[in-house]
């Protein structure tokens, strides 16, 4: 892995503050992080803690009356405050991409999934119909969908939640972005399917050298994939550090609560110490 300075990292967020003009309160305060290629950062927090707002700011899609009022976001070395709408449209997909919780809601129910994937490749990458179809099938294969030619022709309702999330991940990496955001991307899935999708994200991060941002309410999910973790509560960073630091030397009581939940009510309560560190 080549070492990069913070300046050339695909994503550098510095003292980001997002203001909510509807309620006239800051929604996210003073968040800073850097994610390098091939690395993963985790953001943990409840719904309403501001983690999704950060993602939306990174994608240039903050809701109306929410604004970045302080700090900066730099994508691929450029300050996002200078981006025009056209710049954002060009960057989304090719530099930064995202997958969210409910994959079905991002797909047109009446068009086969492969065709929707090919359309992205035609519009964003300017491929011909034939090449777009070939590349779409390659992408379905890359996200480990068996029989990609067959799935290409299937409608969203014919596929399980896990399969749909794979299709969405294929679409997200179609234009070879530097940064991928997974915002609660496995929350609605069964545990065994969640594990497959987490494996896939790790694999893509390593293989494509993605800078990965994993957002989840579950600290264990984030800890499994990420080397650095940010714990958020009510729009503020309550703790930030290496995964080991967060897991083994948590300082904030909220982080301690998240860990305590696993230790008291999770499988961790029964696991013998050796296996817990497997």
């Amino acid at each position: 892995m080549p070492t990069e300075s913070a300046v050339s990292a695909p994503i550098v967020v510095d003292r980001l503050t997002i203001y909510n003009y509807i309620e006239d309160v800051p929604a996210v305060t003073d968040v800073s992080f850097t994610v390098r290629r091939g690395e993963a950062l985790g953001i943990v927090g409840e719904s309403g803690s501001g983690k999704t707002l950060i993602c939306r700011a990174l994608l240039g899609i903050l809701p109306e009356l929410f604004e970045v009022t302080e700090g900066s976001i730099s994508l691929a070395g450029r300050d996002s405050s200078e981006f025009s709408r056209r710049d954002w449209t060009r960057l989304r997909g090719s530099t930064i991409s995202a997958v969210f919780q409910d994959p079905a809601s991002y797909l047109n129910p009446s068009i086969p999934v492969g065709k929707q994937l090919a359309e992205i490749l035609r519009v964003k990458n300017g491929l011909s119909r034939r090449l777009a179809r070939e590349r779409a099938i390659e992408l379905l294969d890359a996200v480990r969908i068996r029989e990609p030619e067959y799935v290409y022709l299937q409608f969203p309702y014919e596929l399980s939640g896990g399969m749909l999330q794979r299709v969405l991940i294929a679409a997200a990496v179609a234009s070879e972005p530097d940064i991928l955001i997974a915002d609660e991307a496995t929350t609605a899935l069964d545990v065994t399917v969640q594990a497959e999708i987490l494996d896939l994200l790790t694999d893509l991060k390593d293989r494509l050298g993605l800078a990965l941002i994993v957002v989840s309410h579950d600290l264990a999910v984030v800890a499994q994939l990420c080397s650095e973790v940010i714990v958020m509560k009510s729009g503020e960073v309550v703790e930030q550090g290496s995964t080991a630091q967060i897991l083994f030397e948590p300082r904030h009581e909220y982080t301690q609560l998240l860990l305590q939940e696993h230790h008291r009510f999770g499988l961790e309560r029964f696991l013998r110490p050796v296996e817990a560190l497997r």
Partner: protein
Amino acid sequence: MSAQEPLLEVSGLDVFYGRGSARKQAIFDATFSIAPGEVVGLIGETGSGKSTLARTILGLIKPDNGVIRFEGADLATLGHRQRQLFRRSGAVQYVFQDPLRSLDPDFTLEESIAEPLLSSGAHSRAEVATKVREYFRQVRLDEGLLSRLPGQVSGGQRQRAAIARALISEPRLLILDEPVSALDSANRVQILELLQNLASPSVSLLFISHDLGSVAGITDRVVVLYRGRIVEIDTTDAIVNDPIHPYTQLLVGSAPILGSGPSDRAWRDDIRSRLGAD
């Protein structure tokens, strides 16, 4: 198990859905029991039949074969009217994931919790009011919230009110269907604590969840359901540390565990291929 008579004994239970050619078996030959005061987890993925099994125990679905012995009486052979009477006795209570399904939106919390007692007609209004307050305290709700509507309290408070409503009939079995999955960490921990303290020789709990990791710590034993069949029943400790059926192994191996590091994909792929060969 001890020589003690089980509270609930399910044996050879088959449940079918639909008619004619659309007839489909949802539960295959289910056999398990719950001892008085025991906390049992019923774990399975989406579509595994766990809610069908729970609804059959509750008397909402009539099984096609098998015996459901509750405190010695066979519920499976009861007619429609008798099952209705059994449900109204309140001996088995059900708490949904979404408390809005247990609470009438137009009733204050006090009215909702009082309703089961009032409709039984066995208590004076003054007695009911006293009991409502007693159970309100037991689920750690502030009396000031008694006059609120479900829409005017937080999700955690609503779930507590739903639990109070279930408890006021003094059930011997409380079935909880994903009772904490819609809540934030602080509320999850508090409600799990509350339920843990609730289990006593007079009340048994059946926890239904797709995620063993979120409820394991509160259960004594786990029943693993896979595609309508019970594939393994054991103490939670044995399920977590020495799972025998490949699906249980996959389920335990897929659960995100704090500090477990990267997951072992090759191992899971192997289990999956074995499951496919079943």
